[in-house]
């Protein structure tokens, strides 16, 4: 699909995505090295405790969502939305291309983020003489969940950017939602909060906290969020004049 090739080139031809990737790598390394070396060994022994540390790769979701947000907001910010709209007169195809591109870049963020956390984390465990007690199936669920979840965050970012084309507004919305709103709702009303995207995505990685959704339900919920945002974003994109 030619529009997708165009979107992938857009992502590669500026430093924005590379910058986000560097940020992710730095944060994943920093967190993993610090928690795995500084936590008392007594707190790294159960499956739940280990999963909790090793699931930190899902932080890639934040970076993937930011990268996804940029796909629309940077076009509005720099005015490239005009040539882009002239060359992609079919807004459905434009949106679909960005949605898939956001998901693909998210996939890469997920592989890198979880890859770093898992390899470095398990490596440090070994050095400290802590054996990995997680079952193979659980490790697989953790990896697959983190990677797929991050890919979906890339798509959600695209939807957010289509709904809120102002870059600062979109980024603030994402961060306020992910770090404040969801945690408040989950804290007070976990039965509702667990259906919100961050917590549903966490559930995809297996059992890491109480009151979460089963993993398979989590996937469906996150997909539903991504699609809902896509439908709203596409409707707004089609209605909005490019000025």
């Amino acid at each position: 699909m030619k529009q997708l090739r165009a979107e992938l080139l857009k992502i590669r031809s500026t430093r924005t995505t590379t910058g986000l990737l560097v940020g992710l790598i730095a944060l994943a390394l920093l967190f993993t090295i610090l928690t795995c070396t500084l936590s008392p060994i007594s707190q790294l022994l159960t499956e739940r405790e280990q999963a909790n540390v090793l699931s930190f790769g899902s932080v890639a979701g934040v970076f993937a969502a930011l990268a996804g947000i940029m796909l629309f907001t940077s076009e509005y910010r720099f005015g490239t939305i005009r040539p882009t709209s002239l060359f992609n007169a079919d807004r459905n195809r434009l949106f679909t291309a960005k949605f898939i591109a956001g998901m693909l870049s998210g996939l890469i963020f997920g592989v890198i983020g979880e890859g770093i956390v898992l390899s470095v984390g398990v490596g440090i465990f070994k050095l400290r003489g802590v054996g990995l007690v997680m079952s193979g199936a659980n490790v697989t669920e953790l990896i697959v969940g983190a990677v797929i979840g991050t890919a979906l965050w890339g798509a959600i970012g695209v939807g957010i950017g289509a709904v809120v084309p102002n870059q600062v507004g979109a980024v603030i919305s994402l961060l306020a939602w992910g770090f404040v709103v969801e945690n408040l709702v989950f804290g007070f009303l976990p039965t509702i909060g667990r259906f919100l995207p961050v917590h549903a995505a966490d559930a995809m990685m297996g059992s890491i906290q109480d009151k979460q959704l089963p993993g398979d339900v989590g996937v469906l919920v996150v997909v539903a969020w991504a699609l809902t945002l896509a439908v709203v974003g596409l409707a707004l994109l089609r209605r909005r004049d490019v000025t």
Partner: protein
Amino acid sequence: MTYVIESASLSKRYGDVLAVDDLSFNIEAGTITGFLGPNGAGKSTTLRMLLGLAKPTLGHATIFGKPYGELDEPALRVGAVLEATDFHPGRSGRDHLRMLSRAVGLPDQRADDVLELVELQEAARRRVKGYSLGMRQRLGLASALLGDPDLLVLDEPANGLDPEGVRWLRDFLRDFASRGRTVLISSHVLAEIAQTVDRVLIINHGRLITESTLEELTARVGGVVRVQSTKPDQLALALHREGIATSRPNDHTLLAQGTTRERVGDIALAEGIAIHELLTEGSSLEEVFLDLTSEVVAP
């Protein structure tokens, strides 16, 4: 007769502002049309509606017989630039063009071809951040040329160009149109495009004020043609027969009122009278333009 561009009662309302008001015009193939009007006249809004970027409040516009969005791969038939600054500063000019050409299935080579066409090869791999305004204008033009279009729509392409750049653009557009292709180019300064265009559409407050050739425009508002000839009396008679009033400031000079150089020249030729000087004076085009656009438009 089918037109390249047809605008039928195009209107656009932004809140209380009627940016474009019942605007109808047609543009024929092979012409260069200047789309003129002072700041805020509604030029950009009209172009955005032509190009499917903004939805008309009323009316509709077609390009090659269809709304822009319904053309099959419109960027291969219509090249357009709306702002000179529509680039990601951190992306190279070449990558900007490659991403656009990929979207319509053109090979990357096409980006290099158009870069050469606008003489921007050397800067191609540099980030746009470091481009001058003139270079950005050229890059924008290059993007419009990617699809090898039959119609160019340019919003104020001469903004920020130095005189040499303006001349380069003029020659370029002339050459483009000489092969039967069509250009619509907007400006708020008549002088900037007077030597480029065949026809002008003048709008103000979103309404069409005048649609004519440049020469007609000059003539209509009382252009004066100064002509030097060895037989001024005979020429004056011939001009009078054609209904053109003349005056005679000195022995060899005639001033012909409200006509064009072409017309005076043709009449002189028909009479076999030699002409030594032929020029338009009196109200300059810019005065004509200011005159037309400062008219009070009835609400």
